[in-house]
């Protein structure tokens, strides 16, 4: 894959309706985005359909991408993940409510930090090491595979409320670590 700056330049040209840049962007990033669709949807046909929708969205939303400080690959993968997760949720609607159980003690609320986070690939890995390994695994597979609380609970053989608490505590710990 080309460097991020080249990908960002391609997205900029796509925003100007440059079809050659769109084709080049596709050839550069489609293997990564297809992989994301496939990991979440776990079906090649559905992943291919999703990839089409994802690139239609990229064409339509390229103008909204502001290169300032943001990772272009993170932006592109987010479009692929969000679309795939939406397809997954529509395919298997779950009735689980998330209204209760919000009040979880914040382990160490960090100071208000308005500074824009600079993306560092390794920072999340360092913070993940501070979590119990099974909880870190649950967080990672939730993200990578788009699993629901129910599916995570089954995979880890714990009640759904336990899984919910695991993940929420883990998110707060991660937030605290990432803001440190």
């Amino acid at each position, binding site marked *: 894959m080309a460097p991020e700056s080249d990908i960002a330049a391609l997205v900029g040209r796509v925003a100007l309706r440059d079809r050659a840049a769109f*084709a080049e962007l*596709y*050839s550069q990033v*489609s*293997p*990564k985005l*297809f*992989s*994301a669709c*496939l*990991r*979440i949807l776990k079906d*090649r046909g559905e*992943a*291919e359909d999703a*990839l*089409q929708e994802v*690139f*239609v969205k990229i*064409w339509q939303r390229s103008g909204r991408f502001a290169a300032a400080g*943001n990772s272009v*690959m*993170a932006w592109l*993968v*987010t479009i692929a993940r969000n679309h795939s*997760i939406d397809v997954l*949720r529509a395919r298997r*609607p*779950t009735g*689980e409510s*998330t209204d209760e159980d*919000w*009040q*979880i003690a*914040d382990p160490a*609320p960090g100071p*208000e930090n308005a500074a824009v*986070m600079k*993306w560092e*690939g*390794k*920072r*999340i*890995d360092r913070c993940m090491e501070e979590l119990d390994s099974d909880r870190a695994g649950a*967080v*990672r597979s*939730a*993200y*990578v595979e*788009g*699993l629901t*609380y129910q599916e*995570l609970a089954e995979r880890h053989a714990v009640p759904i409320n336990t899984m919910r608490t695991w*993940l*929420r505590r883990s*998110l*707060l710990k*991660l*937030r605290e670590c*990432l803001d440190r």
Partner: protein
Amino acid sequence: MSKPEQSEGDRSRDQLLAGEYVLGVLPEADRRKVEARIGKDRAFAAMVANWQENLAGFDTDYEEQAPPSRTYSRIEARLFPARTFQQQLLSAGGWWNSLALWRGLAIASFATLATYASFQSGWIGEAPPSQALVAELSGDNNAALGLMARYDTGSGRLQLMPVAAKADDARSLQLWLVPDGGAAPVSLGILPQTGEGAVDIPADLRPRLRDGVTFAVSLEPFGGSPTGQPTGPVIASGKAQGI
């Protein structure tokens, strides 16, 4: 002292909700609610963006995998639909198709509705065998040009008068005869780049210029279509209709 705690609690709750959204664990209805809030709550949107940047570190788990080779052409077909020749004919014809061609009328008498009405009511009757077929070939709203075509059955000569010609001079305008019933278009020749043009219809094609055929002009590479079939957009068309 309860107020700062309250806002602190809200902040944690929002951080959790933003994190759960980015993780992807929320059910569909909650995802929609979160997205609605992203659109109107900038502080919350910043939290979501922050999580997205942070958790993007997990994207390394997505090992590159080539999609099927057909996928890109499907995306292109979705975004940039290439219209078929038949579809282009339909859209290029415009209102004019319904009264496209009058047999036995000279151009001078062509414009008035009264003539059309008398024509429709059958006053004119059978047209003499060696008079002109006249067609105005009209285009889409943004068509590069309109054309008036006059075909003399006696001489076998099709006369074309461009109206407001704006054609790109690096390209050629090619005239096609489109038989009724969906058969492949037949080239009638290349139009002159400027001014009034005339195309001599090959003798073997002359019997085919009759009711039900359509004239079409397409924009082609300089010198005409390389394939023998229209390749560029149809900029004008008109259907020949007898009485």
